[in-house]
């Protein structure tokens, strides 16, 4: 049976295509959000994927098999294949057959299930070592520290655990309130994470575009949990930005908010720390040493009675923090990101340790609602001169990307763009320091790189925010977590090979909504017919999948 007006196409490989132009698309999107993950959202058909994890999370949230199947069959253009129906039934029936609970006898945890299933999973490689004594036919003892690792191993076996052991409340904060208003999607995402404070909620990842106010959601989570909170973020600038936001948008005072970085070590009810500080390794220990011996700062996770840990830019979570997180499953966890893409493919680890993706909003949808600025993406291709072309050809393969990315033919194009946007706040972003130094000198603009002192960085960013500096040249330090609300033009001169995540994060610097509602412009200058143009295509994929389209134009011949 074919119903052309309906919005969904349910594929037998468990993907679901949502036709955005259909009248009932918004309703279908709301339904899908309950049990499927948004994979990509190009302009006409958004792709969702129904995974075992998304179905188990739906089951945690109380969604039934019948509700999932009713949603799929009632909204699908074509008949839903039996294989999809069977898979939904099979996966959802698995949730809850294994339960992790507090055990009164051992004062630890216990894994409960029917004897046959316990027998099956306890024989699996990787699980046996994490199980303690068999208490009776239906129970295994589990050490508190193995909670995360056990859940991860069982998940890999295809047996999700209903974790009913609850959370440690942590030291409670005094009266604290949020002084900013939450936007509707921010409130929705917070609700999807908190789940009314039940043990089913309180962990997970929220995926929202850059500029959509993820920090505010983090603040709302602190206010909602009302307990001591550790915030982990990417850089000192980001730490200070978090502190600024906390002081600005909550009733917390300076005495209650601490910075734990290379510069200051303040341990306070709300402590903001960088990944770098946490993963500082004591070289006197070898690689096989205990995690907290080798990375002494990771003790910060355990030593304080945190009630909530917030992981900003969770897609950057380094491996030692992964392992430390596996041990603190009794603490509520919130991951925030715009681009949950890891080039190492470890997105699954993020989900199993921090928690499932609880909320995801298509970028273009928020753009249409005016919550993020519309962006115009343009790729400008430059051609190398004959002389440079020959030089490029003579370069060994692994160095070609650098040669193409730093081509001087890009500079006249840069000048023309700057001329075009002389009244705007422009970021010139690049990967290679030498290139950026030349550019900064050429256009007489300040340059910020990893080598720039933190105080200089803070001052320069402040001046840029205040409009005193119209053009800022930045290296990859500006890829993440830097809030530059008035930047409305970005010119990308070079990037890290084909990193999709970097491209999206760089565009994200421009997406704070502008006061006049104007569009942001994102320019990428690429050397045509080179390794760089190949990488550029890959870099654009994430944004294309988010519904952004690039206009590709050829620069006039440099000669």
């Amino acid at each position: 049976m074919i119903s052309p007006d309906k919005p969904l196409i349910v594929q037998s490989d468990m993907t679901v295509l949502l036709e955005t132009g259909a009248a009932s698309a918004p309703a279908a999107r709301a339904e899908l959000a309950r049990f499927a993950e948004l994979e990509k959202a190009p302009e006409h058909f958004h792709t969702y994927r129904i995974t075992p994890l998304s179905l188990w999370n739906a089951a945690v949230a109380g969604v039934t098999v019948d509700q999932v199947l009713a949603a799929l069959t009632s909204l699908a253009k074509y008949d839903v294949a039996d294989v999809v129906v069977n898979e939904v039934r099979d996966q959802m029936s698995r949730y809850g057959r294994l339960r992790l609970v507090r055990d009164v006898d051992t004062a630890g945890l216990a894994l409960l299930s029917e004897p046959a299933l316990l027998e099956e999973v306890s024989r699996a490689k990787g699980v046996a070592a994490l199980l303690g004594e068999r208490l009776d036919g239906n129970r295994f003892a589990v050490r508190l520290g193995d909670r995360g690792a056990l859940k991860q191993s069982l998940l890999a076996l295809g047996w999700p655990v209903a974790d009913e052991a609850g959370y440690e409340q942590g030291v409670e904060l005094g009266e604290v309130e949020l002084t900013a208003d939450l936007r509707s999607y921010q409130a929705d995402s917070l609700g999807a994470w908190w789940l009314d404070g039940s043990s089913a909620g309180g962990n997970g990842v929220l995926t929202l575009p850059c500029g959509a106010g993820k920090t505010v959601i983090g603040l709302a989570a602190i206010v909602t949990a009302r307990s001591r909170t550790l915030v982990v973020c990417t850089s000192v600038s980001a730490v200070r930005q978090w502190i600024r936001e906390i002081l600005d948008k909550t009733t917390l005072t300076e005495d209650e908010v601490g910075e734990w970085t290379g510069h200051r070590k303040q341990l306070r009810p709300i402590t903001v720390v960088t990944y770098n500080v946490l993963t500082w390794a004591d070289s006197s220990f070898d690689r096989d040493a205990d995690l907290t011996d080798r990375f002494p700062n990771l003790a910060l996770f355990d030593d304080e009675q945190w009630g909530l840990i917030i992981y900003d830019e969770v897609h950057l979570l380094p491996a030692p923090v992964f392992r430390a997180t596996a041990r603190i499953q009794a603490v509520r966890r919130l991951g925030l990101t715009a681009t949950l893409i890891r080039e190492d493919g470890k997105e699954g680890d993020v989900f199993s340790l921090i928690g499932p993706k609880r909320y995801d909003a298509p970028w273009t949808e928020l753009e249409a609602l005016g919550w993020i600025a519309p962006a115009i993406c343009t790729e400008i291709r430059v051609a190398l001169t004959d002389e440079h072309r020959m030089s490029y050809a003579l370069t060994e393969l692994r160095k070609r990307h650098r040669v193409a990315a730093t081509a001087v033919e890009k500079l006249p194009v840069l000048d023309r763009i700057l001329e075009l946007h002389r009244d705007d706040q422009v970021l010139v972003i690049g990967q290679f320091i030498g290139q950026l130094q030349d550019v900064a000198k050429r256009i007489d603009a300040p340059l910020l790189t990893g080598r720039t002192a933190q105080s200089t960085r803070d001052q320069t960013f402040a001046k840029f925010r205040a409009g005193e500096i119209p053009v800022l040249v930045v290296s990859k330090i500006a890829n993440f977590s830097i809030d530059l609300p008035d930047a409305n033009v970005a010119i990308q001169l070079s990037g890290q090979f084909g990193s999709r995540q970097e491209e999206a994060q760089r565009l994200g610097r421009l997406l704070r909504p502008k006061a006049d509602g104007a569009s942001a412009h994102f320019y990428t200058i690429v050397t045509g017919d080179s390794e760089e143009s190949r990488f550029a295509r890959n870099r654009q994929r994430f944004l294309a999948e988010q519904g952004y389209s690039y206009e590709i134009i050829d620069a006039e011949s440099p000669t």
Partner: protein
Amino acid sequence: VSASSETIDYIRAVPLVAITAAGFGPGNSAETTSGARKRLESLRSSSTGVVTALDTAGLFGRQLLGLIAALGGTMTAEQLTHETANANKADLQGAIHRLCAAGLLEYDEHERSTLHMNGMLMQWWHGRAPSMEDEHALTSGQLGSICRKLQLKPPSRKKERIDVISDLFSDTDLGATVFLELSSHAKALLTSIADEAGAGTISAEVVGITHFWLMSSAGSPYPMPQHNRGPEAAALDELVEYGIVGVDAYEGELWVWREAWPMLARPYFPEWPAVTQPRLVAQSETDLRLPPLMGLVERALQHWGANPPAGLKNGEQRLAKTEVRRTAKLLGTSEEVVELISRVLLGVGLLLRNVISTSGRGRTRDVKTAWMIDPDLMEAWTSSPIQRRWLRVVDEWTRPGDETMSDQLLANRHLLMWELLSLEPDVGFADGEQVERWIEDRYEPVGAANAVRSCLADLVALGLITGDGEPIALTALGRLALTDSDQVVSATFGSADEAVVQADHTIVAPPDLNPDVAARLVRIADIESDGGAQVYRLSESLVTTAVQNGDNPDEICRFLEQLSPVPIPDTVRRLVEDAAKRVGKVKVMAATTVVVTTDPADLITACAVKVAKLEAVAPTVAITNVAAAKVRAALERRGLAPDVIVGTDDAPEVRRSSDEAAALEARAKVARDAAERSDHAGFQQHARRLTEEASLASDPSARMKVTGPLTLTPDLARVMARTTGDPR
């Protein structure tokens, strides 16, 4: 129990004989129904027919036959009731019906409802427990000893001795008395032997009797010194002395004498195998839709056209594993699918073996060959509608192939298709593994489960049956093709000719996309998802290959514009242009290979490719002794996408089927001349066959057609049954 002797029941019971008779079996070519009828008659009554029927009797059927053989070839209704008390009644009834239909059993209701085993089969039956009456079973002296052990006065004649022993064991009370006299070890050993051997023989090792003990046992003709004999050995001696158990020390086997069995007062087989009929579930009707395989076929042809795969030195008609692996990686599919595609395309003749170089003499002579596209047949292929191309692929899969294709493989394919065709259109088998076990039991020739699995995988890839976890059943297209292939060409496939082209290079098409449009799409895009809507992703390398093979980038863009109801994004247009731009920047020429570039920088890049061993002779020209194809492949790997211009003088001539036709016609003419001079029918037949082959070879479009049914269908079986009549 009612036995049917209808021919249609025979075909149902032993489809393999009918499949062979209809021309799909080993070593046949499809025949007319009248030819099939004769062959069926002949096969059915032959020893081949009986063996085939036995092979397809299943585990249960074979056990039942073994039981009847143990009973001497006939079994009364009472014996049946006693012996099969533990068997599932429905399984039993099904097995008897099938064995009767297959002609392996005959039911005689007048003679105490007796089942008689087929005489020919009875003669051949091996493995049943020996009787004391068998030749060389026991000597008269040994029988005398047994009589004395049983406290019977031995009669003078051997036959009479056997009769008195047999009578004693048949008497319930006397038999029980003998059993009670046995030691506990002997009773336990007897029970073990009876459990394991039933109506047959077993290896002595199974019941813990070592070869040494067997050699030294009372029944052995090779008595050996008796040292360290355990209680089992003594128990065996006891059973042998009583005439209950027989021993073959040479073969290492044991059995319970047929005459002694009644003493045990138990059926021969305490357990009967359960016949696992795969569970049937409702199967929703599928759309008439060509499988994604056809896209892969086109892509494979495109790839092999540009990079002719090397022929194997042993001359086998298949591609090397490395080539299959490489192509599978390129096409983004499994090696099994590429293997299937390659065998089919080689079978159709689209790829012909060409000699590309020869060197050496005598024993050092080295001939290098490559599979190259036959231009004549390729033209016929591309001008055929895609439905016909698909039919031709299926046709090739169902026919006997070259000498490397085993007869068994072909039989397996047709048996599976027969079973699937026998299902109602609205049901399917729920589980593939159950089907594998069932077929493995029902048709012994199919053998291991993986043989069934690979056949099922082929059927899914060909689009004949449903896959992807759906119940196993014929697709609408598969049923149509197998029952009436002519209908496939005239059937209406997807009529949709629109698909949405998106900026992330994906193209979303409805399930009913016109197959010709789909075929065009797969030349430039990978299939990402197919179970519902069809999702493609434009691929730069595919666009490059398409342009290398003659597509025009503007035409590709125009095709996408016409296809998409929304404007095509700039990124898509640029992808096509960029991919096309790479083509022809470098040119490779044959002879001692010459590489010419339009850009000196490209030449430097080309010269850096070590495999090509290029030496620059001018800013844009380099030469090498390496073969053009190898240079081209190496440059492609570096991303240069060269054009190849084959030299007009020295380039090897590409074989064409029209040339083959001329050679065949010449042979046919010689045969016709010979036939004219001779009255011998063989000459006439040979000339006729060669003339037909030559005619077929000279008309490539005829070779694209399917000329007969693709398999034995129930309809065809009914026609055969009607015309054959019942030979009894």
